[in-house]
């Protein structure tokens, strides 16, 4: 687990004077399942988009297995796969045709493609729907076929933006197991999520971004240590670090006020 898969150095994204991401630095090791957390608008999606070549950074570098994604885009992109939170896929392609397209771009052998595609479709319960047009898929099915497309070419690094949103519990469980399994085999996974239980259960290391800056980085134990605790859930640590305590206090106060006999 010592080899480096992703290296982020002084990464910054500015929109005019507004900095969406403020000179962040971190690394993700090979085979690691890295969870990237943060409140809404903290800069998670901006960061992941810069890492996948969808958004150009204002400053800083992103290395994917040693390749700078902005200097060597093709080499870097050969290493990765990305599943966005809203997978807008080709509506007029069937699920199978979409997978075939991805396989063609990565030049996978036909036999390997068929075997891998059948396997992934079966894991996500899409085997019977693979010949339907994607436009007829539900949000969850689109999410699943996008994940299948991302995994069909066995990428070195997988980027997932809110992967469990829209998935049914069974598929979410299957995805979690699959990701763990792939990471154990050597794939690196970088995922953003709002569901803290998932991050806590699955991730080897966690990074928390707030207001464009990394405010915590490490394993669960390291995060607890940083917070001066020996135990406690990720939720508690997250809320404390992202300054949501005040909001919680306000909600509690409001609840008290609304109770019969409470202050009016």
């Amino acid at each position, binding site marked *: 687990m010592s080899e480096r898969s992703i290296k982020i150095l002084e990464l910054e994204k500015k929109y005019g004077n507004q900095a969406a991401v403020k000179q962040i630095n971190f690394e993700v090791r090979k085979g690691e399942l890295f969870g990237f957390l943060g409140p809404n608008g903290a800069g998670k999606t901006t960061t992941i988009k810069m890492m996948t070549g969808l*958004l150009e950074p204002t400053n800083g570098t992103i290395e994917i297995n040693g390749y700078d994604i902005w200097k060597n885009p093709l080499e870097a992109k050969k290493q990765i796969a990305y599943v966005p939170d809203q997978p807008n896929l080709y509506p007029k392609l069937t699920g199978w045709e979409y997978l075939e397209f991805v396989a063609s771009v990565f030049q996978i052998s036909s036999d390997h493609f068929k075997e891998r595609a059948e396997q992934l479709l079966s894991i996500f319960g899409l085997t019977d729907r693979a010949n339907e047009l994607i436009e007829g898929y539900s949000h969850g099915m689109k999410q699943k076929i996008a994940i299948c497309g991302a995994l069909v070419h066995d990428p070195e690094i997988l980027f997932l933006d809110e992967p469990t949103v829209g998935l049914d519990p069974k598929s979410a469980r299957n995805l979690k197991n699959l990701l763990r399994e792939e990471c154990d085999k050597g794939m690196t996974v970088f995922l953003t999520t709002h569901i803290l239980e998932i991050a806590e259960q699955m991730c080897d290391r966690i990074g928390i971004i707030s207001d464009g800056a990394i405010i915590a980085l490490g394993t669960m134990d390291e995060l607890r240590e940083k917070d001066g605790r020996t135990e406690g859930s990720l939720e508690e640590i997250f809320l404390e670090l992202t300054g949501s305590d005040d909001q919680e206090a306000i909600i509690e106060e409001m609840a008290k006020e609304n109770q019969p006999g409470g202050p009016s």
Partner: protein
Amino acid sequence: MIKVLLKNQRRIFVNTLKSQNLKNYFAYLFVFAVLAVLLFFVSQAIWNIAGSVTEPILDGIFSFSLLMIIGMIILIGMPEVFKHLYSATDLEFLFTMPIKTRQIFIMKYMQSFIGAPLTVFLFLLVPLTAYGVASGANIIYYFVLVCMLFTAATIGLSIAYLLNLVVIQLIPARRANELMTAMTFLSGLFVYLIFMLPQISNNRSLSESLMAGLPVLPDWVPVSWGSDALIQAANGSMSFFLPMILLILFAGVLILLTTTLVEKGFRTGWVRLSEGSGKKKKRKPKKERAQGVSHPVIAIGKKEWFSIKRDMREWMTFLPLAFFIVFPVIGFFSGGIRLSDLRGFNDISWPIAQGFFLFIYALFNGQLAAAAIAREGLSAWILRTLPLSGRDIALGKLWISWLLPFIILTILECIVGVFLGWAWWQFIFGIVVKAGITIGISSIGIWIGTIGARFNPGNPQQRLTFGTSMFLLLLAYVYLAVLSIPYALMLVPGEAAPFVVDLGAESSGFFGFVFSLFGVLLTWKASNPVIVISLGLLLMFVLSIGLAWLFLYESAKRINRGVTIDIVSETSGKTLFKQKSGKSLY
């Protein structure tokens, strides 16, 4: 409640205007300036002839104007109304609120006036007011004019609403989007037929009837009442009242008819459409799946093909073929000419057909290729995250957008050739040469697509910004003009050399130069036909392949740098956001 809804719409409209960037303001200003200039010239022309227009001619002009308002609003309004009624994003929200369906409908109906009806209304109001002033019309004329134009706009809009409300109940929900595009085409035909009515009924074109002062339309047609009312009002006669009321009543009946269908056509139609999207065609699982993995360039082309094949709206690009080929053919044969009269004149029919087909290629190849870039639309992230170079993407999109029109037009050309009895070498020569020439047009299209890509989910035909589509048309025809010089050299027989030389001597300037040059080349051809034809062929292919390579290279560079696709909102047609990419791919 309607007041609240309209106030909300007004706020949205004002906020939309306020949030536009400077570039858009200039674009609006430019459009207004062009329209104003156009209106000025039209009004000036009417001002100049106002004194000499006789009453029968005036009757024809008024009838025609009112008919034009109705026709234009049906034509432009059909897809607009469909968007307002069934694909506006606010409907889901509005239907969950305690608002009567009828009230939402009325709000949508009133909202529809801003757009095509208002534009057409103003476009006729200004010149016809100019006519009133120039001819010294009675003051009542202006009041009646506003009334009649507004009534005609209401009639057009009501028909557009009525058609939408009826059609939505007849067609399967999942095909609604596509069939609505087909409906727009059919309404185009309908409007075309309306304007052809005078020609069909009395063998005279509309303009001939107009100028001869003969009735353009029969008296029972409602627009004739409007025309009558306007003439009476201009003369200061109170007889304008009855025909005016009749036309207003007619509009009232249409509105009434439309509103009776609100519950069934609007709300239920919207519900059916919303359900429809979830019930897309389920295919039976194939036993043997797919053809397997292919080269990335082929895979991109295949992906494009699937998108085109499976969306009827994509094929609308080829609809002008009907106007260019089917209608002229009908017109030709309805003129009493038999096919046998045309056979055996290969020397004439073949070159004419070549020129004609090249013109059609220039129209389609560029458009189809340019559309391929913006087709990515919301799915652009896929290509951007895949390890594909700009060259692969450009090439993948080029081959399919070149091949499709080539296949369709080659089949058409073969049919034409068989009927006209062309020689075998004419088939082969024509097809091979055009295959070479058209690659250039397609790659120009790809390049243009990288400059002005625009994506409107509800309207796949709109894949280019207006300016760039005009630029594409210009470039395609300039390209064709350059390439047709060596091609014409091959088609025109050497015996024509003395005639062309004479033409060169008689003409001066640019055309004189072109004719003289062409004359010299034809003289060479007369003495050395094989060498000149071979050289012409070589020059043409070098030019075509060279330009194709150049534009492909430039397109690949632009794709690598990042292409901006304007994503247009389905409801308002306004640019929602620019999907600005970075350095790589899309």
